């Protein structure tokens, strides 16, 4: 593990909104080709952290490096990452091919580079026939898979997936995770947040956030062993429950 190349380095990251501390001294590293799960209840500070990593927001203090670039240069970071959110991100009134060309173009690819890769991608997702179909005519599961394929179309170093599988049926979720594995095997680091605790088990390592702090970080197996729980879900309930009554 120590020999691996770090693609994300976070040291003592603090993000404040007025007097509210959204991220309280976070420190973690993510390695190349890893599937890194980011868990936490709503309001735990996940979204804030992701926004900083994606270059949408600046840290109040601390050091953040993404793809070897400091967070003070978000424009450079943005060129090297991919992003997909839970909210659907393809244009419904454009065709499959047009969506691919748009995102390829935005990430600076030429049509010459886009064309062969597009064919390859359509074949791989086995909807070569559907290149000219409008997104809105595709079933939801297929759209979500396509959205992921588009997010990594330009071969980013890291792809950020913000609750990518919420609202998707179990079969599609399964296929979605197969795509995630396949992407990671191509050397693209996958940074994923999720609500589904069974999905946490699929990650190489997971981080659990609670009230702006990281409360656990390790492989799923190691964490289960450490806290003596059967599943990540149990573990999550045990350590990430917001303090309502002081003990």
């Amino acid at each position, binding site marked *: 593990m120590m020999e691996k190349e770090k693609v994300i380095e976070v040291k003592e990251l603090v993000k404040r909104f007025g007097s509210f501390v959204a991220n309280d001294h976070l420190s973690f590293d993510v390695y190349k080709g890893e599937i890194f799960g980011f868990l936490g209840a709503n309001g735990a500070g996940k979204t804030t952290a992701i926004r900083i990593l994606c270059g949408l927001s600046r840290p109040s203090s601390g050091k953040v490096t993404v793809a070897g670039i400091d967070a003070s240069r978000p424009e450079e970071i943005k060129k090297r990452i991919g992003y997909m959110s839970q*909210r*659907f991100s393809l244009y419904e009134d*454009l065709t499959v091919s047009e969506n691919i060309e748009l995102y390829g173009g935005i990430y*600076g690819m030429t049509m010459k580079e886009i064309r062969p890769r597009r064919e390859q991608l359509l074949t791989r997702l086995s909807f070569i026939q559907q290149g000219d179909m409008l997104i809105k005519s595709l079933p939801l599961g297929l759209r979500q898979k396509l959205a992921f394929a588009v997010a990594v179309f330009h071969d980013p170093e890291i792809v950020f997936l913000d609750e990518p599988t919420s609202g998707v049926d179990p079969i599609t979720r399964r296929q979605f995770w197969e795509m995630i594995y396949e992407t990671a095997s191509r050397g693209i680091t996958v940074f994923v947040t999720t609500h589904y605790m069974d999905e946490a088990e699929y990650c190489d390592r997971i981080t659990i956030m609670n009230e702006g702090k990281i409360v656990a970080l390790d492989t799923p197996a190691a964490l289960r062993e450490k806290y003596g729980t059967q599943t990540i879900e149990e573990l999550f309930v045990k350590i990430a429950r917001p303090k309502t009554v002081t003990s």
Partner: protein
Amino acid sequence: MKRFMAFVKKEFLHIFRDYRTLIILFGIPAAQILIFGYAVRTDLTNAGIAILDNARDEVSAELTHKLEASEFFEVKYNLGSYEEIDPAFKQGKIKAAIIFPANLGTSLAREGNATVSIIADGSEPNTASLVTAYTTAIINDYSAQLTRQVSQGMPVINQEVRMYFNPNLESYYMFVPGVITLILILITALMTSVTIVREKEFGTMEVLLVSPLKPWQIIIGKVAPYFFLSLVNVIVILLMAWFVFGLPVKGSIALLIAETMLYILLGLSIGIFVSSSVQKMENAIFISFLALMLPSLLLSGFIFPIENMPKIYDYVSMILPPRWFVEIIRSIMIKGAGFAYIWKETLILVIMTVFFMALSARKFNVRLGEGEK
């Protein structure tokens, strides 16, 4: 630049794929020009009138003939008594009744004056005042003729009225500039705010912000197609005005286009500002419509003259861009005025544009820096 072009191309695809957008863009202006130009007339043609001729003499016959001969009136009824006036109005076919007194000819000859009564349908105040004005003019004209005949050699002052810039008082002289003004603010402010807010609502804005596109590139890329289409639109409207109504642009076309570009830019910056303030498309539509369209329609001076309004509305209308643009476009198109005559209005539009651009730029940056949610 290549990234930017890919993005602009996508925006054009959106517009051309959605036929509703195209209808709003090109269908509505065309329809409005035709409707306003042909149907909504503030001038009078073939208004029905009734005549109650109690005199039945030479003078009343001649006046009736004059009224009938004018293109403004059509005599629908020759009434026999006062009792018939009310039903004639209720049937709705006439706008006015003209009553000649029994002694019209004789009293005119003997006393030198006589009274003709005009009863107009007050349920339509605008038409009523037009009808009375036109009738009075015809009668005056006739009595002036009489005076000349009677008082040979006596000095008489004749009035000769000429409507400068619009000799026939055609209403489309007013409506064409007005429609251009309204349509532009509709397309630019409403459509850009909706198109930007749509990206927010569908979550695609998030993806765009994470992409290497800079925020200003996203905004410019989104509004650039509308800038282009609005300009095409204005040219289409001008051509239509020219071919359908024979209304040419009197002043410099280059100046007109330049002023139009400025106005489009202002509309776009208002649209951007609205989009940065709301999260939902309905709100964007609501704000653009209620806060912009309605006041523009009512207070820009396009339909109702600002001079006739209470002073307070005059002040309110000053913050409305259409008020100034109507003035500019009317001056150039109808009066053929040069820049020297409209620099003040132009300056006001420039200031408004800068103001809204600065405001939205600030809002956009604040939103980015310390994100909501």
